């Protein structure tokens, strides 16, 4: 009941936020001191071409009418045509969004897989060398700017060791000569659907460096949070009881303490 009320309230409020953002986006586009018609008409348009673009884009209509058109189109998820790529924005989103999501999901999972176990280990060995190493690592990971880390990783793994690719989502032989059929847009899933394990491995190797780069910050945070939560839990009596009962250390840490630490 509590949850339902919360969801309803947030939904109600977000409607206002949505309208406000739509309005802001529209206003910002109007006050920027440049001519969207000239931008749309290309790099070196004639006066007639700009005029034509103005009519095509309906820029000579009054402001309120244009806001109505804009808001109406947004409401029906019609994003129109990009001034830059000259393609439907929905089409561009379909092409780019899956790649972003794939990387975001993969790096989040990676961050948790790295951060939580390290946090547990650091808490279990509180004050020991493992704890210090993990703590130092987490501070470094949080403090390091991603663009810098990305270049260092590229330098080490692509340039020096040559074991991971420098850029891209797939190797050129696959991207150029034998492209994956686009089903979901997630390369990993599309490769599995097509039954091409080598393409899956290829997409995976291409994901590692960018995912690692993006995961470094959240992994550091997750490690710190897990560590502090775990330290608190490990001092509780039921953990002492578990130790007294002779449960194995991993069982105590991951079976009893960690779920408690996470559930707080």
């Amino acid at each position, binding site marked *: 009941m509590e949850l339902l009320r919360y969801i309803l309230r947030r939904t109600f409020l977000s409607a206002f936020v949505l309208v406000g953002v739509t309005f802001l986006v529209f206003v910002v586009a109007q006050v*920027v*001191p*440049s*001519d969207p018609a*000239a*931008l749309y*008409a*290309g*790099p*070196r348009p*004639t*006066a*007639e*071409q700009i005029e*034509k673009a103005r009519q095509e884009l309906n820029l000579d209509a009054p402001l309120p009418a244009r806001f109505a058109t804009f808001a109406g189109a947004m409401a029906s998820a019609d994003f129109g045509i990009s001034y*830059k*790529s*000259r*393609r439907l924005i929905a089409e*561009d989103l379909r*092409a*780019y969004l899956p790649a972003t999501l794939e990387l975001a999901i993969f790096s989040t999972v990676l961050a948790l897989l790295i951060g939580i176990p390290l946090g547990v280990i650091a808490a279990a060995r509180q004050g020991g060398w493992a704890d210090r190493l993990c703590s130092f690592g987490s501070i470094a990971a949080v403090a390091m700017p991603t663009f810098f880390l990305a*270049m260092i990783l*590229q330098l080490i793994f*692509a*340039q020096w060791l*040559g*074991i*991971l*690719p*420098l*850029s*891209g989502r797939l*190797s*050129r*032989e696959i*991207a*150029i*000569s034998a*492209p994956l059929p686009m089903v979901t847009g997630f390369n990993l899933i599309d490769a599995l659907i097509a039954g091409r394990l*080598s393409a899956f*491995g*290829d997409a*995976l*190797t291409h994901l590692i460096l960018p995912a690692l780069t993006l995961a470094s910050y959240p992994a550091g945070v997750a490690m710190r949070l897990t560590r502090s939560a775990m330290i608190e839990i490990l001092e509780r009596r039921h953990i002492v009881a578990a130790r007294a009962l002779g449960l194995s250390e991993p069982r105590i840490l991951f079976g009893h303490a960690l779920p408690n630490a996470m559930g707080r």
Partner: protein
Amino acid sequence: MNRRNFLKTAALTALATAAASHWNFAMAEGAGSIFTLAYPTSFPDLDPATSFSNDGAVLANVYEGLTRYIPATDTAEARIDPLLATSWDVSADGKTWTFTLRDGVKFHDGSPLTSQAVKGSIERTKKIGGGASFIWGPVSSIETPEPLKVVFVLSEPQPLDLIASAGFAAWIYAPSSHDKEASWFNAGNDAGTGAFKISRYEPGQRAVLDRVEGYWGKVPDGAFQTISFEIVEDATLAQNMIESGQADWTYSLPYENLEALKSNPDLNVVVNPSFETLFGLYNVKRAPLDKVKVRQALSLAFPYDDVISAGTSGFGSRAKGVVPAGIWGHDTNAPIPKTDLEAAKALLAEEGIEPGLELVMTYSTSQAIEAVAGELWKANLETLGITLKLQPMAWEAQWQLGKSNPEAAQDIFVMFWWPTFVTPYDYLFNLFHSEEKPNFNLGYYSNPEVDAKIDEAAKLSGTDRARAEALFIEAQRKIIEDAAAIFMLDQPNVHIIRADIKGYADNPAYGHIAFVNDLSR
């Protein structure tokens, strides 16, 4: 699975993926028939009628025009080569042009090249009216007396052989595509006669072109089967790719890195003059720049050599008027000023300019060289008591301000110019011919004598090119005498290619384009 087993499996998996990616690299290096370009910008428009940007790099390998411009070298004069047309004739009045088409050329859809196809292409381009289609403005009708003969009737004399060689809006495309929308082309379809066809287009990422069977032109031994345009906006990554052999061609790397690249035996750094020239238009409609001596003083205070060395690491060259080297109408002996602060001071004193004068220079935020030029000029002007206010703007905003009211606009409008097709007319008419409503003449310069020379030269461009050239140079000398603009530098064309690529030649008439059919490994 117990722990030892798990570790073993993990280690094996890691090894296997590492090995697989090693194998991928090996494959990439061995793929001799793919030519890869690391291209710094995306391709916003693949419609041959309206494309007016870097998309030309793709289209030039897919489509062909009637003629091609070959720039002057140290040993040879500039010329116009036959391409889809084998020969052409112009009437004595310069208004009727007859082109004979090449026999046996086929479009990628299998249909033959005919005069009808040429007529249909140019008419579609004109009708849509986008991009550079204005180059066909003087064409009043196109006739097709024979399947391989096409006649253009013009409303005024114009050099149509040059217009037909343009890198934009001059492509000939198959009749089956003449009723298609821009979206059909931008989905990755094409209808050209070139050596390659577009196989796949992933906007913002890559365009893959494959060789067409039965191309009419000469194909060298070891020619490439596939072209891959990889869109790489990050210069560091592009440099990495060209150094590691993942790319064969790239450009727009920072000038300061070029020395290091030059010493790399795997790479060839090709430096040529481009047709892009950097200048600042003085606002002659507003005091104090309405006085010629003040403008001359400003030009004398410009640190030409410092800007070339700081802005382009010495790769650029001194601009001699507005028409850059390599293009006909370039004035090798133009009377350009040298940096001379004393002379500048004397001129300012003559006009009674007191210290404390403030001038506004606008330039585009996307052009790093313009910022360098502004900063160095500002330092020199400070010693003369003039404050140069640098105002970086988005290009559209800068242009909008320039086009508004000369009285309220900038004092100095800094920009690059490059020609739509290779003629001095493009520079002189757009930038210095009187305009009723400013469009690109953003210094608002107006001189009937210069107008007359430009107009006369334009009329003679098709029939008496030597006389036209002389007139264009006279017009430029007058513009330099009037100090209507400051000519800062000619931009270098720097392309970096792998050293094992054979047959490469830069052609500044076609922006950053590699004609891959001529290349081999």
